[in-house]
Each structure stands twice: as structure tokens, then as C-alpha cells.
């Protein structure tokens, strides 16, 4: 006969007692609470970092586009220079005139560039020509907004191998010839440098209760009103975009901003831009802010085209 009984279990093999269960629950609770706190703080950190990245990306994107545009700015191309607004002629393509043009028509050869750079889609498009025959360039007409600048209203592909471009001796992969139609074109002779540009405006404006940094995408048919599109934002306030202007080789700061003072605009040598952006979302009722700035030397502000090496005074 067996000494064991089905209804009897040794103590060591019994189920949990209430005390054991409670102790285990308490320990589990403590551990869970601790883990939850860690997860929660991690989550808060991630949310905060995400917002900071958001604000950073905003500032970075704005500065990338802005500084790229400034580096490419045309000589005499800054049209309006305010504390929180800037209008400039932005090159779409640099080329060389084939000659034989008129005040309403000009044909030029361009280096390999994205073809959309040559499409004068809006009346923001214009052109200037270095009409100087000497070493000191004379870019005309000035791309100021209004009736004086060279509007481009249409363009068409031209034959590089036919007159007037055939005499240029142009060679190289991807070269294009275009014939532009418009008004106020200077009479360009063969070999003179032509810049096809688009007027661009930067400013800040409020929309849906938030401030935004905006960049123009063109103009209306009157050629005086820009079509503005948000570039980056939101930004905390109207003064979150600030331009500072410097003139000459010594970089003398201009305070107040030059506005439309032609004499000062012509001598601009560098522009500093400061942007403060904020995150698009909030965490625990707070936004993140990011401040970034960059100073750009206006390298296309070529004072002279004089040859840098070789025979002194040689014409270029």
C-alpha cells in the first residue's frame, strides 16, 4: 500500500500562497512602474528631439535655399534690401550673346544646364547683358522691378549651327542656343555675356495664426506683384528673419538696411541672414526653437574682368 495520498502535497511543491503572490505583485508593480517611467522619459526625449530636429530642419532648409540663391546673385542684382525682406535677380542661366539682336529679341548660347532653367515661364524672367567692351563690366539694364528692366516673355530653341550663333565657334557637349523675345533688351554684340534671371523675393508673412518664411515662385502678369509660397516655418515672430548688409571689400555694415538705395545696393559685398524657426508641433504645450545664421559673399559681384595672370593690361 502506498504511503502517499493523492490529496496530499508536500509543502515545497504547493501553489503560491497569498503572501507570495502579493509580494510578487508588489515587485512586479515596482518594476513595471520603473520601466514605465523609463519608457515615458524616453518617449518624451524622442518627442523633444523630434521637435528640435523639425525646427533644425526648418532652419537648415531655409538657409540652404537662401544662401544658394545669394551666392548666385547677379552683379547689381539686389533690387530691394530690407531687414526682413530681400528681392534679387537670381540667375537661371549664364550665356553668351550670338549678336544680331534687337531691343525685343536676343539669341544666346548657354552651357549645359537643366533645361527648365531656360524656360521664361513668367514675367519674373528677365535678362541683362554686360555691354561693356572693356575690362570694367556694365550690366544692363538694371533688373529693378518696373518698366526699365529687360522682360523676357517667350523663348524658343535656336540652331547653334545656324546664324547668328554659327560664327561663335561654340563647342562642347550639351550647349544650347535660345532665342528670347521680350522688351527693353540691350543690343548685345557677339561674345557679350548674357544672364537670364528670375526675380526672387524673400519675406515673412502670417498665415493661419503662424509666421512663415516665404520665397516667391514668380510674378503676376503685371510684373510687379510676386507670387509667394512658404519656404520654411513656422517661425516665432515677424522678426525671426533678419538680413544684415555689408558693403565694399572692408565689409562695412549698413544700418539701417539699404532698402532701394541704388548706390548702396551696387556696392553690396556680403549679406548675413539669421533665421529663428520653431517646431511645427508642441510637446507638453511647449515648442522647440532653433536659431541659425550664415554670411554669404556675393561672388558674382565682379568688379572687373581684367585678366589675372599674364601680360599686364591685356584685354580680356
Amino acid at each position, binding site marked *: 500500500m502506498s504511503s502517499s495520498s493523492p490529496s496530499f502535497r508536500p509543502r515545497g511543491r504547493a501553489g503560491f500562497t497569498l503572501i507570495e503572490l502579493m509580494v510578487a505583485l508588489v515587485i512586479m508593480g515596482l518594476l513595471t512602474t520603473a520601466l514605465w517611467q523609463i519608457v515615458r522619459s524616453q518617449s518624451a526625449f524622442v518627442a523633444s528631439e523630434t521637435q528640435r530636429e523639425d525646427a533644425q530642419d526648418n532652419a537648415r532648409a531655409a538657409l540652404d535655399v537662401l544662401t544658394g540663391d545669394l551666392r548666385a546673385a547677379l552683379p547689381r542684382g539686389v533690387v530691394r534690401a530690407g531687414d526682413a525682406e530681400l528681392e534679387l535677380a537670381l540667375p537661371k542661366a549664364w550665356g553668351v550673346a550670338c549678336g544680331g539682336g534687337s531691343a525685343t529679341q536676343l539669341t544666346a548660347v548657354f552651357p549645359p544646364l537643366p533645361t527648365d532653367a531656360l524656360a521664361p515661364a513668367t514675367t519674373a524672367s528677365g535678362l541683362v547683358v554686360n555691354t561693356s567692351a572693356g575690362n570694367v563690366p556694365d550690366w544692363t539694364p538694371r533688373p529693378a522691378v518696373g518698366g526699365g528692366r529687360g522682360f523676357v516673355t517667350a523663348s524658343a530653341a535656336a540652331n547653334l549651327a545656324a546664324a547668328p550663333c554659327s560664327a561663335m565657334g561654340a563647342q562642347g557637349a550639351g550647349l544650347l542656343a535660345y532665342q528670347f523675345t521680350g522688351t527693353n533688351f540691350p543690343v548685345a554684340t557677339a561674345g557679350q555675356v548674357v544672364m537670364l534671371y528670375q526675380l526672387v523675393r524673400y519675406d515673412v508673412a502670417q498665415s493661419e495664426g503662424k509666421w512663415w518664411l516665404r520665397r516667391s515662385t514668380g510674378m503676376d502678369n503685371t510684373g510687379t506683384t510676386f507670387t509667394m509660397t512658404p519656404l520654411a516655418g513656422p517661425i516665432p515672430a515677424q522678426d525671426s528673419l533678419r538680413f544684415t548688409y555689408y558693403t565694399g571689400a572692408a565689409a562695412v555694415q549698413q544700418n539701417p538696411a539699404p532698402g532701394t538705395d541704388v548706390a548702396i545696393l551696387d556696392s553690396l559685398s556680403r549679406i548675413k541672414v539669421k533665421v529663428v524657426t520653431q517646431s511645427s508641433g508642441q510637446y507638453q504645450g511647449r515648442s522647440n526653437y532653433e536659431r541659425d545664421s550664415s554670411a554669404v559673399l556675393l561672388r558674382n559681384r565682379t568688379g572687373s574682368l581684367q585678366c589675372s595672370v*599674364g601680360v599686364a593690361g591685356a584685354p580680356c
Partner: protein
Amino acid sequence: MPVLDRWAPTALDRRGIALPVALLALVALTLMVTTVMLTSGSQGAAATAHADATQSLYDAESGLQSYVIAQATQQNAFTVGASTVTVTGTTRQVQVTRALLFSQGAAPAPIFRTWAVTAEGIRRDTVSGRAVTALVRQYTPSSNIGLNIQSAITLGGDLDVNGNAFTVNGQNSCGQGAGYQAVQSAYNSNVTTNGSGGNKFNNFTGVSNGQNTTGKAAIDSTGLTRTQLVNQVLGNKTLASIIALVPISKKWCWTGTCQFRSGSPLANRPLFSGTMAITDSIAVVDGGGGTVSVSGGSGVLIITNGGVSLGGNAVFNGVIIVEGNFSLAGTPTVTGALISLAMTGQNEINVDTQDNSGIAGHVTVQYDQCKVSAAMNAFASQAQPPTTSSTTFAWAELVR
């Protein structure tokens, strides 16, 4: 017989809290690690992409500038096509592509060119990233020497004639036109004779206004200053700009002190033997402040920073231009033209009585338009005018 205990616990029956806790901890840990990895991974990728784009842009910019500067300092013209440039101080490479937008003129005339230079970074053996383009203008001067010779001897300084056996003939000996006067001098040049016996100008002949001239009448004492006379005969160029057209392989030294030994890009040039090589139609000799002895040659011989002496039976066909003094002795013959600038230093008039042309013995200087033309044509064919480049302008950034 023992009865099996159906209820005996096995290892699987040993329940505890450790496993659930461990699993829970594992889940939490996994969540945390995943979060951190996602955050840091996306951040890192974004930062890397931005750094790559920025580096690509600056690589392209520096590659473009490096190429233009290298070509400019070597005074080389661009060529249509593409080449690879290594960014200074790195192993990163940039493809630089040149397109000729405008070209005017052809050698030996001056050449003007406008180039579009596009640079784009090479990453993982592929041209990609942000590109920049800029325009550069290049100018190559004419390889023509463009002399405007109007006499057998062009005299910037003084002329001393010793003895009677000195034949100077401005009449053209090759039948192309009548020719010029025997001597053309600056208004303040002195022509003097030394010694006794005979008319030392008897053997001077020339042409003036279609009429043959002899004796002192064959000397054209112009109203030009020395500077004006030099400008006239050199075609409004400086001697230095003419010398700049001559390739280094045609430049020589006369002494150890020589501008053509002063290092890059000028090689350590050897000493001039006194005779122009048969293959050379151009020679520039730095006299080192002394007098270069010439025993023969043909073409255009330029003596800078010194004088020249022709002696013995030296025969020279062409044009000799000397910055300092002439000394002719013995029985040398020059067929073509002699030009004595009587200058010290580039384009600087030195009213120095030491800058004389002292002539003794039997000397013949015969103007010959054919020899002069041949010398100038040979100069144009062997000259290598340096190409100069403008600074880059018309910069634009391209996003591919």
C-alpha cells in the same frame, strides 16, 4: 509494490515570477533600444546626407577654382572636354567639364574665348551631387612680332663711326619696294665720327620720298623721342611683351646671372653659343649686363639686358634687336635690319651716353625686306604667346 504518484510535480510545474519579469523587462528593453536606434539612425542618416551634399558642393567649387588657377598659372588655354581634379589636401575628386561658348580670332591673330566650366563631385566612381558652373574668359595675344621697321638701322642711342669702311644701305635688296633711309634715329641721338680721313658717311645710302639718298642725307633724324621711336619700331609693344611671346626653349643666358635661370616656370637655361641654331628662328639672350658676341644666325635675335657685338665674318640674316649697345667690328654682314633701343630696363628710356653704337672696321648693314618679312613670319610660327585667364565669374549652382 510502490504506487506511482500521479501528482508528483515535475520541473515544468515549478512556476515563479522570474520568467514573466524577465520577459517584461525584455519587451521594455526592446522598445527602448528600438526607439534609440530609430532616433539615432534617422538623425545620423539625415546628418550624413546633409554633410555629403555640403561637401559635394564645396568640392565642386574648389575643384573648379583649382582647375582654372592651375591652367592660368601655366598660361595654358582650356580645351573642350572633361578631366578629373583632386581637391587639394584630400583624395576626393571632381570632374571638371569645359564648353567653349565663344571664340574670336585665330592664331597668329589675338584669340578671345569665353568658357563655361562646370564641376561636379565624383562619389563612389560616379559623377553625382551638387554641381557648380562659372564662366572664364581667356585671351591669347597675337604671335606676330609686328615690327615697324623703317630703316636699315634704327637708332635709339648714339652712333659713333670709326673708319670709312662702313656700308649702311636702306635700299631694299630683295626687290620688294624701294626701301628706307640708311639710319632712322631719335631726335636727340648723336651721330659722330672719329679719326681722320675721308667722308665716313660716303657708304650710307637710302631712299627718301622715292629719291635715292647718300651720305648724311641717308640719315633720318626724326623728331621722335627715344620712347616714341621705340614704340614705333616695336609696333607699340614693349620689348618685355615681345620676349614673353618666345618659348623658354628659345631663351638663353650669356652669363651666370640670368633671368632665365631664376626658377619655375623658367628652366635653368644654358649659355648662348653665339650662333643661333639652324632650327631656331627666334632667340632671346639675356646679356647679364654685358655684351653678347654673335657670330651668325637668321631670324629674330633679341638681346635683353645687355649689348651685342658682331665681329669677324659674322653673317646674320634677319632682325637683331638689342636693348643696349651695338658694337660692330671686323667684316660682319647683316642683311635685314638692326634695331638699337639704347634702353636699360623695360620701357625705360635711359639717356645714357654709354648706350652708343660704336662701329669700327668694314661693316655692312643691308636693309632687306624679304629677310625682315621672313624673320617676322618665322617668329610668328615659333612664338608661343601665353594665354591669360580672367577670374571666374557668373557662378551658378546646379542641382542634378
